[in-house]
Structure formats: structure tokens, C-alpha cells
């Protein structure tokens, strides 16, 4: 009973947190699922978005321009990873690691220090939900509206000629080139778009917690991946709409599990281990199942 009580109290906060991380999960889904190009840049573009938005807000900029600047910075980070991958023939994973490492220094330069507090500044949340920034459930409602807009725009884009081209490049580069699609341009644009979404997540996070920190990106990629995998397990990925909704729904569910783990007495510092174990289990399950099936299916002597 103790557990349930604690968990119920955590539900509103975990929903809001899940909604914040849903943006990053979308930014992780695009390279991994739509482009078939594993990319870790989110780990750097998330804090970049947070740092840019926080620095701009602290410097007195408007909320819209702070978020726009964060989006632009995230897009540049994503494009940079793509350019390194294409120009120097480095795997996308390594290109992303190089970029996220460099971004650590850049993020400190952007803020002028390792962190920036926004407690005395207007944010997305104070602007819409009043000076106290709103209760967790109203914060969640605001984020849900934002997520609907982003997912709607993404769905529309992926149905356009360019979006269909992007998905074709992710599915089969040879086929894409044979039909006049520049695989390089689409990889650059696709990772740029992913960077945009990860940075939007970071910008939202720094306003949500009124605080940006250079280390806020640590582990964010695996969280995004966990959300994507979980969402796909729930919704499947049979249609484009499901593939887009999966990271969002998965992220919301993922933070319910986080809240449950915390209610069970796990420490917040245990969460990265648990998340890693979850992703491992999700990746390993199909392989283990196939092995078991084979063993069960083989005729006995």
C-alpha cells in the first residue's frame, strides 16, 4: 500500500517529465527508425538546446526567440554529425560521439558557465500557466498540446514528397538514388531534423526545471531509445502514425515505470542502470525467444 500511495503521488510529475522527454525520444526515433542510421548526437543537442534557451532567456530574450534559437542550434548539431559522417566516411555513431563531445565545451561557452538558473525569468510555463509555472498536471496538458502540434507537423511532413523521400533513403539508399533522391542531402536534413527535436526537448527541459546544466544530457539517448522501444511494443509500427506516436506514448509509459521504481525504494541514481537493463532486455528478447523456440521446436531423439 505504501508503494501505491507513493506512486499515485508521483503520477502527475512523471507524466510531465515523460512529455518533456518525448521530444528527445522523437529526435532519437528519426535516425534510428526512419533513416536506419544510429546516431547519438541527441546526448549533445539536448543540453545544447537547453543551454541556448536558458542563456537567451537569462539574457532577456523572449520565450519564442529562445526556443527558435535552440531549434536552430540543434539542427546545426545534427547536420554537423551528418556532414562528418558523409565527408570523412566515419560511422554515424562515431561522428555523433565526436559532435556531442565538442558540444560539451560549446554548451559551457554558450552559458558562460556550467549552468544557468531561470528561477527569476519568464518561461514557457510561467507564460501560459501563471507565475508559479503551474501544477504538474496542467504542465502536462500544456506539453501534450505542444507534442500534438509537433507530431502533427512531423506526420504531415513525412507524407510530403520530401518526407517520403526521407523514408525511402532510410529504407534503401540504392533505390533512392535510382529514383533521383540525393541520399546525402536527405541524411543531412534528417539528422538536422532529429537535432531540432532533441534541442526542443532540452529547451523545454531547462524551462520546466528553470535550470540548464551542461550535464543534463547524460543518458538522454538511452531514455529516448527506451521510450521508442516501449512505445513500439505498445503501438507497433505498422503505420506512419504509430511510428510517430510510439516515442511519445513510450516516453510517457517509461516515466511511469521510473516512478514505480522510485516508489519501490530505488534511488534516482539507480535509474540509468535500470534503463540500460530495460533497453538490453528489449533488444535481447527477440533473439532469446528465437533461440528458445528453436530448442522447443527441434525434434527429440
Amino acid at each position: 500500500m505504501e508503494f501505491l500511495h507513493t506512486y499515485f503521488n508521483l503520477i502527475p510529475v512523471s507524466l510531465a517529465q515523460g512529455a518533456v522527454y518525448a521530444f528527445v525520444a522523437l529526435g532519437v526515433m528519426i535516425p534510428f527508425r526512419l533513416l536506419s542510421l544510429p546516431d547519438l548526437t541527441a546526448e549533445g543537442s539536448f543540453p545544447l538546446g537547453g543551454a541556448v534557451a536558458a542563456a537567451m532567456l537569462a539574457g532577456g530574450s523572449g520565450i519564442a526567440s529562445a526556443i527558435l534559437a535552440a531549434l536552430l542550434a540543434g539542427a546545426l548539431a545534427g547536420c554537423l554529425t551528418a556532414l562528418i559522417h558523409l565527408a570523412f566516411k566515419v560511422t554515424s555513431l562515431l561522428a555523433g560521439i565526436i559532435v556531442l563531445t565538442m558540444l560539451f565545451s560549446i554548451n559551457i561557452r554558450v552559458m558562460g558557465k556550467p549552468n544557468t538558473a531561470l528561477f527569476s525569468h519568464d518561461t514557457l510555463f510561467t507564460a501560459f500557466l501563471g507565475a508559479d509555472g503551474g501544477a504538474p498536471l496542467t504542465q502536462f496538458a500544456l506539453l501534450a498540446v505542444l507534442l500534438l502540434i509537433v507530431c502533427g507537423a512531423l506526420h504531415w511532413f513525412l507524407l510530403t514528397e520530401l518526407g517520403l523521400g526521407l523514408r525511402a533513403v532510410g529504407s534503401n539508399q540504392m533505390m533512392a538514388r535510382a529514383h533521383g533522391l540525393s541520399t546525402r542531402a536527405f541524411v543531412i536534413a534528417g539528422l538536422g531534423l532529429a537535432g531540432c527535436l532533441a534541442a526542443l526537448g532540452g529547451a523545454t527541459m531547462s524551462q520546466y526545471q528553470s535550470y540548464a546544466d551542461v550535464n543534463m544530457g547524460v543518458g538522454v539517448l538511452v531514455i529516448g531509445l527506451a521510450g521508442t522501444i516501449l512505445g513500439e511494443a505498445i503501438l507497433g509500427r505498422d503505420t506512419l502514425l504509430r511510428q510517430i506516436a510510439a516515442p511519445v506514448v513510450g516516453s510517457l509509459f517509461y516515466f511511469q515505470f521510473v516512478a514505480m521504481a522510485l516508489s519501490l525504494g530505488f534511488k534516482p541514481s539507480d535509474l540509468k542502470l535500470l534503463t540500460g537493463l530495460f533497453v538490453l532486455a528489449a533488444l535481447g528478447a527477440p533473439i532469446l525467444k528465437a533461440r528458445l523456440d528453436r530448442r522447443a521446436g527441434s525434434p527429440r531423439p
Partner: protein
Amino acid sequence: MTDAHGQAGVHVSGLRKTFFPGTVQEKAALNGVDLDLAAGEFAIVIGSNGSGKSTTLNAISGELQLDAGKVVVAGQDMSRLPAHKRARFMARVFQDPMQGTAASLTIEENLAIAARRGTVRGFRMGLKRTERDGFRAALEVLGLGLEDRLSDRVALLSGGQRQSLTLIMATLKAPSLLLLDEHTAALDPRAAELVLDATLQAVKGRSITTLMITHNMDQAITHGDRLIMMHDGRVILNLGRAEKASLTAADLVARFHDVVSDRMLLN
């Protein structure tokens, strides 16, 4: 497509390519390939493994960077264009049935992409409702029932079905040049026959200039307006319709051995 300078069709000259130059694996794959196809001509390329057939096709399509040589299609010099820009003029079907289609997209999405080959993509819808009737009509020709499965993912199709779809995609918008790289070789005999029939139907009815590689001597003799034999990165035999008419498979093999042994003696 004829223009004042007599440049219609396809003109390929002096293609040269050496793989791994300056290493122990150095291999001269193309040693000056010259080829001319009249507009609407259906040419069949044969030759043993490693003779440079596929390398020639990849050089024409732009997938492969040449050391030297010129590729002109429908009066346009392609030599400096990347593969995706050459796609405005040429369409391709590959040996591997998996290579020609996007497996995670639906049949109609694949066709919609093919229908936009050579156009500048924008923010218009990537697949319009009004296109579906045209797609159905194009697929009906195959007789595989694919016209009733437009919204199925291509991953669900067999190799033969995927290769048939690739062929329809390649000819949905008539290209100035169609490149077929042993596109029936990886299929079972029935599927191979079906894809070949569909190819002949698509190519002949619309006079699409075509370059087709095959390993099948009978195919090479029965079909096509021109027969090209390659060896050691060169064209060693180039027969027009008249010369080809009296040829048998045995003749062809004999002539291959003549040319090759002559060459070996000369060397």
C-alpha cells in the same frame, strides 16, 4: 528524341576504370569501353564474370566514379553528374530483387516515388489519391494481383514480385535509358520468365532505349536489336539486328572462344 547533332540515344566512349590502383589487388576493370545505341534500341550485353558488364552499367548510372570516359544520354553529357541527377534520364533494375524497392514503404509509396523520378521534390503530398488508378493499371499488366495490395508493405512480397514491381517502377515514367543488370538471374525460372515478359512488354511497346545484361545465351539471341559481348573490360563483339538474326547459341560460344583465343595469341 532525335536532335540536330545526331545525339539521340546513348553514346558511351572511352570508359576506363582501375580498382585499387597502385596496390597488389590492382585490377583494370574497364579498358576503354565504347558503345552506341540508337534511340529505342534494345541492346543485350553478355560476357563472362569479371568482363566488365556490371561495371559498365554502374559507370553509366553514376554509381561508380570513372577514371576516364564520357556518357551521353539523349544529348546530355552525364559524365559529371552524380547518380541521383542521372536518374532524370535513366532508370535501373538490379540483380538483387531487394535493391530496387524500399521494403519498409508500401507498394503505392514506392510507385509514387518512381512516378516522381526526375522531378524536384517539394512539400506537395508524396502520394495523391488520384494516382492510385494509374498505379493499379500499371500493376495489372503483371497479372500478380499486386494491384489489389497497394497499401501492403513491399517487405511482404516475394523476390519475383519485388523484381516485377521494380520493373514497373523503372518504366512508370519512360526513361531515356533503361539499365537492366541481370535482373532475372536471382529469380526462380517461372518468376524469371514472368519478369522477362514484363520487360519485353514495357520496352517494346514504348521504344525505350535499353541496355540489358544477361548470362542466358538463349535470351541474348532471341531478344533485342543489338548483341554486345564484353571481355577483359572491352567490347569484343557488337552485332546489329541483321548480323544477329542468323546466330545460334553455339555460334555465339564459338565466336567468344575465337575472339578470346585470338586476343590471347596476340598478347
